[in-house]
């Protein structure tokens, strides 16, 4: 596993994340049909198809530029709650990395933490409300704890924590977003946005492990 990635490496990492979303569309649709309005899969497809296009248009990007390109594309093309939330995560998360030539474990942790904070500010939600925050927040904590070991270990920890966090949303009662009004009926189903976070971080981990 690599300890850090340059801009090209980050671009490849993000392409792997996008590919995971694009091949997970049906799962995301199912998840949003159970708790929301059924469009999370097709929304994320719009956003990450645009992200792939944006990434391939970049010339010699820095890690921050690659992350920001994804955020901007997702923000512009996804729509719905997911567009704002995932766009904000990537755009805000990229900002503190500007000027850095590589993405390492600490950089990943910063990206996740800063993105998380911006998402919470934008949407007014917090952990425990059955949203993607319940995957992103534990991922950010896990990445920070493993940051010193390098990007690979930090990503592995983040992906595992995101997965556990997403799993934990099953037991939660939705109190925000379109699933909110389901009340008790929202229990038992995984939050679609949390599942997307897991797909993204899991694909990054696998990409790095394979790379």
């Amino acid at each position: 596993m690599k300890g850090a990635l340059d801009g090209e490496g980050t671009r490849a990492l993000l392409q792997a994340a996008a590919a995971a979303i694009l091949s997970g569309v049906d799962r995301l649709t199912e998840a949003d049909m159970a708790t929301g309005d059924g469009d999370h899969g097709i929304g994320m497809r719009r956003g990450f198809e645009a992200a792939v296009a944006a990434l391939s248009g970049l010339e010699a990007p820095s890690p921050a530029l690659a992350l920001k390109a994804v955020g901007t594309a997702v923000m512009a093309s996804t729509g719905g709650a997911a567009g704002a939330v995932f766009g904000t995560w990537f755009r805000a998360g990229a900002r503190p990395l500007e000027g850095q030539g590589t993405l390492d474990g600490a950089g990943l942790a910063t990206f996740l933490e800063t993105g998380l904070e911006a998402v919470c500010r934008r949407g007014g939600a917090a952990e425990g409300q059955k949203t993607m925050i319940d995957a992103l927040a534990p991922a950010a904590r896990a990445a920070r704890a493993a940051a010193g070991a390098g990007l690979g270990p930090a990503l592995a920890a983040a992906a595992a924590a995101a997965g556990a966090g997403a799993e934990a949303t099953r037991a939660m009662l939705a109190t925000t977003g379109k699933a909110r009004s389901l009340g008790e009926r929202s229990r038992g189903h995984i939050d679609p946005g949390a599942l997307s976070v897991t797909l993204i971080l899991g694909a990054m981990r696998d990409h790095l492990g394979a790379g």
Partner: protein
Amino acid sequence: MTRAKKILNDPRRVVEEMVEGLELANDGRVVRVPGHAALVRRDIPGGKVALLIGGGSGHEPLFHGFIGHNLADGAACGQVFAAPAPDIIHAAARAVHRGRGILFLYGNYAGDNMNFDIAADLLGDDGIEVRTVRVRDDVAAAPPERVHDRRGIAGDILMIKIVGGAAAVHESLDEVERIARKAEANVRTIGVAVTAGSLPETGRPTFVLADDEIEVGMGAHGEAGVRRQKITTADAVADQMVGALLADLPFARGDEIALVINNFGATTMMEMLIVNRRVRQILAGAGIGVHRTHIGTWLTVQEMAGFSITFMRLDDELRRFLDMPCDSFGFQRM
């Protein structure tokens, strides 16, 4: 699973083609913001407070069919059931701005709130003043003390009518915002779903109801309501829905209201008229007058069968804006 049976071209291009068809359907009175899924009036007067509406597509003729004289100045159109992205809203807002600020009026959903707020931030950077009023009329979504958790549904229809009138008459954004907040505080809606609609892109129904079940309190994207129950008579359904509305504001003897019965898609007008008969019996018994009735198809959930009932309590000021003539693709009044 079989796909819903619809007459479409490319299911992934429905919004793009719909916006093209809608611009043409306006016969020149409304034009597209170049490069964006946004439509604006051609003849917005200079110095007018601008009214920008919007939201996900798939609810046609709302929102983007409500652009016109004494209604909205423009609308940002999202994908089906998805809030428009910030840059669509931003582009639409810049196109409607006439120097007196912009009121954003839309339904209270996490996606809309965030995307419109991001656009408002961008407009702030441009030096354009924006105020936001979110419609939260769905009494089924949350109890009254959690009104910020309530969704916007067919209350949008009366809200656009009234705020459109106010924005045509008043030259101050403060005044338009004040009137919008007053109207919003007085509007209540409850819906019922009979059969599901489907997303054009997936072709899949947004929920599943048994043949003998209805869902009272259903939201405008298939979100669950207060309860799923056996189908019953029109009178019993009306009793239940009107009961929930009256208790919520609460409406009281001597009030005068505007009444909307909105078709979510595939319900027959005959059913809604039969429901109206009962609604009026109850209102007459409660001593509540009806100033105006609108029964029709405005806020749809694709081909979902079901309808909603909206009451807005009126005062002289709201009545004035409600009664103004208006013209648009989706809503007209002489």
